């Protein structure tokens, strides 16, 4: 199966530049390799991808251990903003980095939209 990486990259870049308060995004494999990334300068693709996979796998495990069912998303809120991880189809994980002024509700909607588009390319 050949994934159209160029298309994925374009989608990510558009998403990052068109969505207010979003600073970066990455689409990675569940075993932590980058598929497509548009990350702030200075962030290492490989490292971010591996961390995303690790975090989602642990989150899913915690979700089942604590009887929360299947996990829709995991998010990290820090003094500098948000990191939101969403699983995107079976074979990808979507990471979005947003700054502190992001409105969470809007952000979640935008992520949902982006995932719908990404899924079409991944299929």
């Amino acid at each position, binding site marked *: 199966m050949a994934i159209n990486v160029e298309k994925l990259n374009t989608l990510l870049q558009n998403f990052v530049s068109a969505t207010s308060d979003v600073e970066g995004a990455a689409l990675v*494999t*569940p*075993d*932590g*390799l980058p598929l497509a990334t548009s990350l702030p300068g200075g962030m290492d693709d*490989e*490292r971010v*991808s*591996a*961390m995303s*996979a*690790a*975090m989602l*796998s*642990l989150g899913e*495990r915690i979700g089942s*251990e604590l009887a929360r069912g299947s996990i829709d998303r995991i998010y990290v809120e820090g003094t500098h903003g948000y990191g939101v991880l969403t699983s995107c189809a079976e*074979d990808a994980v979507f990471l979005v980095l947003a700054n502190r002024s992001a409105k969470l509700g809007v952000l979640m909607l935008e992520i949902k939209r982006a995932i719908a588009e990404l899924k079409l390319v991944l299929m």
Partner: protein
Amino acid sequence: MEIMRLVVTGPVGAGKSTFIRSVSEIDVVDTDRRATDEASLLKPKTTVAFDFGRLQFSPDMALHLYGTPGQARFDFMWDILIRRAHAYMLLVAAHRPREFHYARRILSFMQRRSRAPLIIGLTHTDQPGTWDEENILIALGFPNPDRHPPIVSVDATEAGSVAVAIMTLLQHYSQVQQRNVEQPAPHR
């Protein structure tokens, strides 16, 4: 109740997850995901965060067993896990000499962060092309036959064999503890 945290590390496919699954008394926390990298040449799944298992070693001692991922892109997990380890084991597949150099890199990563006692476990010694201990030790950076960590052969798929390896690690741990009591390490 005393808790000992033991870490199992080593290259992809050495048998870290299998090792822990073989002896854990609880359902192992497993973060294996479908492998899309070189790991997929060896097996369908690979660990992306850690394995966690538990073994009641004696009425007053529980072992917490942590398995690391094998790939260096997960070295942030190596770092998190090794810093809290009481002792650890480097698992190396004895029939994959091309990975010895990488195993040595993992080892130096760990030794820069932890002074916990370690032993070396050789897996896959039932396979053709297995190197002998002496040469593996040299490849791992221990050329002096009198100065190297304890080394054992272990079949990660066999609970009995894994138990022996864990015993060896615990014995080594208590010997090192004993030595430190007798001649305390200078403060650094």
